[in-house]
């Protein structure tokens, strides 16, 4: 058994889920370090998390200012090298603004901030974060956002579908993807996508808020714990972890 995964949790001015990720580190078996957005490197991290919140006050557009924070150059290089990256909620928005993931997250179609437990259909169960899930199963995670309406132009959507990079869709409790189950008007009910290589996951829901049965569910724990098994299979990462 190698050591615990070293996970860099990024903190921008206005990030609010960083402490939640740090708090659940014990449950998921991570060695977590909070990394302020002005840092220019990620140190010895095995994985990077961009947590939810309102980086730079969400001004101009969600993630628009954060993507130019000094640490983002290191995140781009880390992602391009195949490192495991998770962007949740505002983190997903930052990844799209940075062009690390395609598309954009727009104002919810009903203009309301939506904070609720949300069933999701798992479309693909692979990569550093979803490897412990099963394709086709329905999981439940909290959502908490006002700008979660996934949008991309038709050719981008077609490519995402053709390459099976839509990994999570909003669904009802039975796992059916219906317009009524879509909490924000996302095109194709998209809740989460991965990059071409599959090492970067962006999702609007909050896995870190679903790690204890007492607060409503533990499906998030299964996502965060997926990292350990994935890292063991990565030759470069395994070497770093000796």
């Amino acid at each position, binding site marked *: 058994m190698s050591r615990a995964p070293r996970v860099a949790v990024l903190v921008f001015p206005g990030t609010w889920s960083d402490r939640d990720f740090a708090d659940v580190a014990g449950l998921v078996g991570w060695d977590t370090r909070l990394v302020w957005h002005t840092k220019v490197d990620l140190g010895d991290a095995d994985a990077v998390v961009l947590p939810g919140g309102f980086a730079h006050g969400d001004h101009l557009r969600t993630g628009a200012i954060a993507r130019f924070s000094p640490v983002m150059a290191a995140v781009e290089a880390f992602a391009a090298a195949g490192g495991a990256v998770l962007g949740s909620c505002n983190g997903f928005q930052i990844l*799209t603004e940075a062009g690390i993931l395609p*598309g*954009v997250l*727009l104002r919810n179609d009903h*203009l309301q901030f939506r904070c609720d437990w949300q069933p999701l259909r798992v479309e693909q169960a692979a990569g550093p974060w979803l490897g412990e899930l099963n394709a086709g199963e329905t999981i439940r995670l909290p959502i908490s956002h006002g700008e979660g309406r996934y*949008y*991309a*132009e038709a050719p981008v959507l077609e490519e995402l579908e053709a390459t099976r990079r839509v990994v999570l869709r909003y669904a009802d409790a039975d796992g059916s993807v219906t317009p009524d189950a879509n909490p924000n008007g996302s095109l194709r009910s998209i809740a989460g996508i991965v990059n071409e290589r599959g090492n970067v996951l962006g999702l609007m829901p909050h896995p870190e808020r679903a790690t204890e049965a007492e607060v409503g569910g533990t499906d998030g724990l299964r996502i965060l714990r997926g990292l350990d098994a994935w890292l063991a299979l990565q030759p470069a990462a395994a070497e770093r972890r000796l």
Partner: protein
Amino acid sequence: MRWLAEVNVRLRPGIADPEGQTIAGGLRALGFEVADVRAGKLLRVTFEAVDRERAESAVAQMCSRLLANPVMETADWELSADEPAAVGIES
């Protein structure tokens, strides 16, 4: 010299604009026969550049790098010299 760019950021045509639709609903409730409203942003940027050509080039870069996200938005602008008004001195 000092320049003022008034940058209009618009949502691309075809992208649903719930904010605009809500505003349109408000106008209709007041009795206005409104066909459509599209919400956008107006940004007034004051900055220094030696001449108009360089000022234009600077605004274009501001828009493409930060002020508008081309996936969902377009930007256009009006540029004007922003010299402080001359103050008359009465003797």
